[in-house]
């Protein structure tokens, strides 16, 4: 079984610990993991902002990079949903526009291979106990893409419940969007923030130490709010919890907290 890790651009650049954790978990379960370095980004930001044409080369790239693998595993529900829901649409549109069927075929071949991490663990490997230990109180935010587009159901919760020492508490309003939504977070920042603050308030009400999710994009938004509000609650990707064992030093493994934003900001925005 040739298994490729599709890490996604956000994880590669900002959350490498999540990638390392995925490798740790999969290798512990006897899976040989490969990371094809030709991968970059699935094109979701472009697609969802209305730049479908700009997405096409990235669809082609994804299909080529992962063509030789049996399974492609990603710790990002939204990127998995991008491939599953939108790649076929993008392919169909290129055909409809008379630009051949190559992209549609390539995208079609990729779709069934792509699994979100918890799907891969539960459905393909058939495990819920991944041998982790994490003696902390955790609440789980089932991001919209995992919840509605992928239909992950209780897979993440089953995995968390099997972690030794972990106390899983239900998140009120769990099924509500956290307000990230890609470029929505900046194009409609006020509403995005209001949604995130409600999510954070609900998470805080559970008394959990860790707000867990399966999508670092949502966690970046929520973690950024938590840090700004000086909350002790920390946002952590489920892979990092599933990778934790008793051999690890005390305390939950956690990414560095979101840092203060020193230095100029506006002037550094890419403008062309």
């Amino acid at each position: 079984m040739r298994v490729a890790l599709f890490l996604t651009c956000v994880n590669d650049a900002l959350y490498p610990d999540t990638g390392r954790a995925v490798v740790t978990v999969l290798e512990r379960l006897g899976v040989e993991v490969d990371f094809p370095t030709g991968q970059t980004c699935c094109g979701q930001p472009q697609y969802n902002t209305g730049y479908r044409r700009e997405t096409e080369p990235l669809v082609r790239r994804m299909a080529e990079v992962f063509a030789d693998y049996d399974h492609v595993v990603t710790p990002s529900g939204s990127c998995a949903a991008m491939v599953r829901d939108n790649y076929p649409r993008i392919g169909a549109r290129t055909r409809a526009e008379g630009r051949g069927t190559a992209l549609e075929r390539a995208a079609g071949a990729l779709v069934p291979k792509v699994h979100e991490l918890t799907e891969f663990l539960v459905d393909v490997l058939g495990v819920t106990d991944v041998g982790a230990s994490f003696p902390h109180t955790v609440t789980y935010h089932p991001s919209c893409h995992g919840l509605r587009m992928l239909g992950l159901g209780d897979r993440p919760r089953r995995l968390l419940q099997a972690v030794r020492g972990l106390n899983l508490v239900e998140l009120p309003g769990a099924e509500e969007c956290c307000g990230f939504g890609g470029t929505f977070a900046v194009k409609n920042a006020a509403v995005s923030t209001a949604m995130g603050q409600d999510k954070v308030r609900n998470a805080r009400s559970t008394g959990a130490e860790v707000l867990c999710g399966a999508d670092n994009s949502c966690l970046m938004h929520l973690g950024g709010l938590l840090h700004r509000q000086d909350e002790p609650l920390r946002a952590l990707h489920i892979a990092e919890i599933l990778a934790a064992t008793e051999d690890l030093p005390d305390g939950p493994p956690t990414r560095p907290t979101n840092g203060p934003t020193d230095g100029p900001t506006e002037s550094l925005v890419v403008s062309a």
Partner: protein
Amino acid sequence: MSRTFIGMPAFPKAAAVSTQNRQMRANLTHATHTIRDKRARAVAELDDWAELRLAGKQIKDRTLARLDEYLVQAEAAVTAAGGTVHWAADAAEANRIVADLVKATGEREVVKVKSMATQEIGLNEALAAEGITAYETDLAELIVQLGDDLPSHILVPAIHRNRGEIREIFRDNMASWGRPAPEGLTDTPADLAEAARLHLREKFLRAKVAVSGANFLVAETGTLVVLESEGNGRMCLTLPETLISVVGIEKVVPTWQDLEVFLQLLPRSSTAERMNPYTSTWTGAADGDGPSDFHLVLLDNGRTDTLADQVGRQALRCIRCSACLNVCPVYERAGGHAYGSPYPGPIGAILTPQLRGLQSEVDASLPYASSLCGACYEVCPVAIDIPEVLVHLREKVAEQGGAGHRLERAAMKSASWLLDHPAAYSTALKASRLARGVQPRRLPLPGAAKAWTDSRDLPPLPEQSFRSWWKERTPDQSDRNKPNAPNARTEPTDRDQQDGAN
């Protein structure tokens, strides 16, 4: 006279203000959560809901595909039953037809059944300009009218108001529209309903002309159908001498049998009721039974253009149940007015810009008024894939350029180029790490950094990207990591390895 949505600011601006309105948000959260929970229970009672939903979708799609034929059939049936059919291409034409019909009766007042179509065309304002007063008789619509307010929900236009506010509105304004509010009016629902009942009864008994919309138009018999829950609709549809119904051309269903599906889908989705309290049907005009003069105004107003769009046309399946509003987290925070149209929420975000076009700033902003969370698609009883249409419309907005989109396209293009060249991408990651703390703020959108950091911190850049860690870990294996050699299209692989130098 009530205000209009014309001149509203674009969604992000309006929402930034309304989101700060604590009272409105509390009212909305309470109301939408109550109804969404009730709806979920009502829907769960039917074990064939999925099949019903599919049937609703298919009936609408089949009808839309042959809309021209069904409309002609409906016109013939209405005419045969003694009604008169008028065709209105746009709002101005529809308003002119209705105003002329009212004037021909010699009346200066009309009573109205709650109708989205007449709000869409701004009928009340148009009639006022002709010296005709239109009285809304739906309770929530009455509250909006008396409060000189705008509707903020499809089904419950005054959803943003609480009982206390409604009492004030009744007490202060009922007198200038007719019968004043009773002395010592409290804010109990029964008291408020009684005040409205007394106020409205005078209107029903005096009215010679009524204006309505319709939920459905059955092509085979030319029958119009209105679903309502207060009984005011039935009063308007039966008491006056002249009835004018303004109906969007997409409201057609071919047969009475098709109605069966929608009479199950609509009440459960909208009010969480198994069956709605009042279902009124009327066909043409008959002596001694209801209005003696019946006019049907068939309204296009952008619907034909919407129908021409293969992806966007699914918005025309909408049966205005408002379930998508009640689950939408964006609507819940921003409120209905921020959408700048009588159609707020997820359906408004795809319907309004299709009916009105994408030229204005507010209409171009609506497709972005969503986090694409998909909750609206999940509850929609006719399975409108609202997120799909939103993205489709975003593409159109991006293509038309303007208001930052040229800049954005350039940013997206350069991001795509970078992401299609892994070696260059890798170098960029490395460079960003050299300038630590800078790169993540280079979000590929104009103004994005500030919009993010106003309320949220950004994560610090890690010491090392994952790919550079991977290469350190498996240096000798880098060659097997390039099936089909997509890297070869760009730069030699060893350039990638520089990233590991950090």
